[in-house]
């Protein structure tokens, strides 16, 4: 029903576009000068069709369920039901009307369900009638109003601006929403677990929180030594460090090669090939790390008499580094290429060799951009989850030995939130606290990266 109505409105929009344009042509044919191009008249009418439709649809979506509910429940008023019971009755009614109700059907509810269905169908048809009549009225009004000297271009441009603004607003509001959903749970978490224990505690063992019987009262003391985040923060930075040790040199050198040494032909093929690495899903990197690199490292380590666990920070970090190579390589290639040719010429003309020119002129000039690309790589490394979950294990050891397994913030969030969990439980809330700290860390990194990139931009303008 809604779909048909919607299609109809869209068709109506196209029709009004056509009529608006035709009217403009008619005006034009009488040798009057238009204030805008004919299609603006068309868009203008289409907007007069779209805006009322949108407003009515949204109002309907907001008020229809409330009103229907009120009407249904009015039958049950004065019978001494509690609010919760009324809600339950309403839900039962709805389920029955959809044929999904499995419980005992009372005649009361059956009657309500019938009433519900009839109300819905009245609402639907009245919606269709109201929407269509208002649209036709508004389009007709606008159609009559447009003449040779009416302004159509400005409203159309304003409308487009409003649409674009709404799109960016939606993105911003989503971010704000995510932050808020984190904040409240985080605050609840820190009501039970002191901030100090979280930030400076050295034991991370959330499984201990499973043991609690939910009927018992919450006893904060039993959580001491459970949610100390130091091991996983250390693990996060340690694995990110290993990843960057792999990604920075290889990425940077390949970026320099692509930008300065590779011939046009080689660059044409090599750059997309490197960027393919960025398109591989991280889960694939994950089993590459867990099933190929991990056992390989273990074998090599064993042959040298080292005790290497199959799940090691080195395997996860190394593979993560490979994942980040294309980011650094591609971004630094772009940055180096954008260093003006005149600087290279100036250096060559002084008798500098290619490597001297790169080392002394191009690299320093591109450095801010390169730092920006590295920081973006670091925030990828810190936020990476799948590789760690699969290749580095889940036990949060506090260690600096790359051959042992460690865990990271993101991996722990996964551990905490898979399977059943109760909201309002400190264990679940710990995930939010971790998410919040992760958010803060990457936010800081991104701000720094953007600052650096901005500074670079000013340099050549």
């Amino acid at each position, binding site marked *: 029903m809604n779909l048909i109505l919607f299609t109809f409105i869209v068709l109506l929009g196209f029709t009004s576009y056509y009529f608006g344009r035709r009217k403009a042509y008619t005006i034009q044919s009488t040798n009057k000068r238009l204030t805008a191009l004919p299609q603006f008249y068309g868009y203008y009418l289409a907007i007069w069709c779209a805006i009322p439709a949108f407003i009515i649809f949204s109002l309907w979506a907001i008020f229809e369920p409330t009103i229907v509910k009120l009407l249904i429940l009015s039958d049950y008023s004065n019978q001494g039901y509690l609010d919760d019971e009324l809600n339950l009755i309403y839900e039962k009614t709805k389920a029955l009307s959809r044929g999904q109700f499995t419980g005992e059907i009372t005649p009361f509810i059956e009657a309500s369900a019938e009433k519900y269905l009839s109300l819905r169908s009245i609402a639907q048809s009245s919606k269709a009638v109201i929407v269509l009549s208002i649209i036709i009225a508004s389009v007709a009004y606008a159609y009559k109003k447009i003449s040779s000297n009416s302004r159509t271009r400005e409203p159309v441009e304003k409308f487009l601006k409003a649409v674009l603004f709404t799109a960016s607003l939606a993105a911003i509001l989503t971010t704000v929403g995510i932050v808020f959903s984190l904040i409240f749970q985080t605050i609840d978490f820190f009501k039970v677990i002191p901030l100090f224990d979280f930030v400076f505690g050295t034991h991370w063992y959330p499984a201990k929180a499973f043991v609690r019987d939910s009927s018992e009262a919450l006893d904060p003391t039993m959580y001491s030594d459970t949610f100390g985040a130091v091991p996983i923060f250390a693990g996060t930075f340690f694995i990110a460090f290993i990843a960057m040790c792999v990604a920075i040199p290889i990425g940077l050198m390949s970026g320099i090669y692509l930008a300065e040494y590779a*011939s*046009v032909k080689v660059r044409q093929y090599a750059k997309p090939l490197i960027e393919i690495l960025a398109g591989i899903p991280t889960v694939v990197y994950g089993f590459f790390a867990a099933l190929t690199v991990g056992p390989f490292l273990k074998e090599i380590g064993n042959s040298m008499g080292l005790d290497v666990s199959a799940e090691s920070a080195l395997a996860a970090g190394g593979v993560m580094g490979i994942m980040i190579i294309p980011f650094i390589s591609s971004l630094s290639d772009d940055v180096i290429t954008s260093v*003006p040719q*005149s*600087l*290279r*010429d*100036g*250096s*060559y*003309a*002084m*008798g*500098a*060799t290619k490597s*001297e020119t790169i080392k*002394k*002129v191009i690299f*320093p*000039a591109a450095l801010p951009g390169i730092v920006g690309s590295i920081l973006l790589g670091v925030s990828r490394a810190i936020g990476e989850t799948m590789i760690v979950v699969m290749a580095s294990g889940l036990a949060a050891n506090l260690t600096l030995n790359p051959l042992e397994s460690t865990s990271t913030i993101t991996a722990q969030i996964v551990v905490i939130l898979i399977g059943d969990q109760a909201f309002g439980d400190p264990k679940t809330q710990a995930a939010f606290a971790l998410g919040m700290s992760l958010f803060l860390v990457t936010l800081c990194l991104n701000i720094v990266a953007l600052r650096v990139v901005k500074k670079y931009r000013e*340099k050549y303008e």
Partner: protein
Amino acid sequence: MIKINSKNVDVYYGKKQALFNINLDIEENQVTALIGPSGCGKSTYLRCLNRMNDVIDICRVKGQIIINDFDINDKSCDVVRLREKIGMVFQKPNPFPKTIYENISYGPTIHGMAQSKNEMDEIVETSLKKAALWEEVKDRLHEPGTGLSGGQQQRLCIARAISVKPEVILMDEPCSALDPIATAQIEELIDELKKDHTIIIVTHSMAQAARVSQNTGFFHLGELIEHGSTDKIFKNPENKKTQDYITGRFG
């Protein structure tokens, strides 16, 4: 005294020939101006003299260019040494995004010309003095060179070029991005520099060529139409095309 002797120089960009059989002698310690309409090959010729065309992948140079009895197009030629001897100043001022001091010390450092900090300070000071920039920047040597005005930047680039004591300085339209006052300063400087250096300048301004040069070469469509003393080219050209160009009938 002939400083540079070009014999049968042809230049190709891919399949397209840009210079046809150029034979030109450049006099030592004089200013030679290369004039001609846009796209006539004068800058291409200039870039042959310090092998800057090597930087362009598709560019090929044929023929001999003899400097100090040595063919610079020969395989045994060391480009690094060549460019140390033949400096270049570009159309747009292109100081490195470093300090003024580092801009000047760049060349001497890569050629290992200074043994100590004092020596380097001295090279920087004399180069800036020769480029008539010392008085303006002596108190801000450690500020970025990109912060100077356009004319100052171009003089900084000249100072950078002369810091390695080149025998020849190539200038590719050095004043085209500058205002008349800065242009006058650079022209004065060119006159000063010819005592120690041989200068070849590409210019679009006939007035500038007449003011600063002793010899002039006129290029048209990749060919050297006429060359000789500036006086003769401007007052009494042999070729009709030269005459037309100088009097402003085309170009």
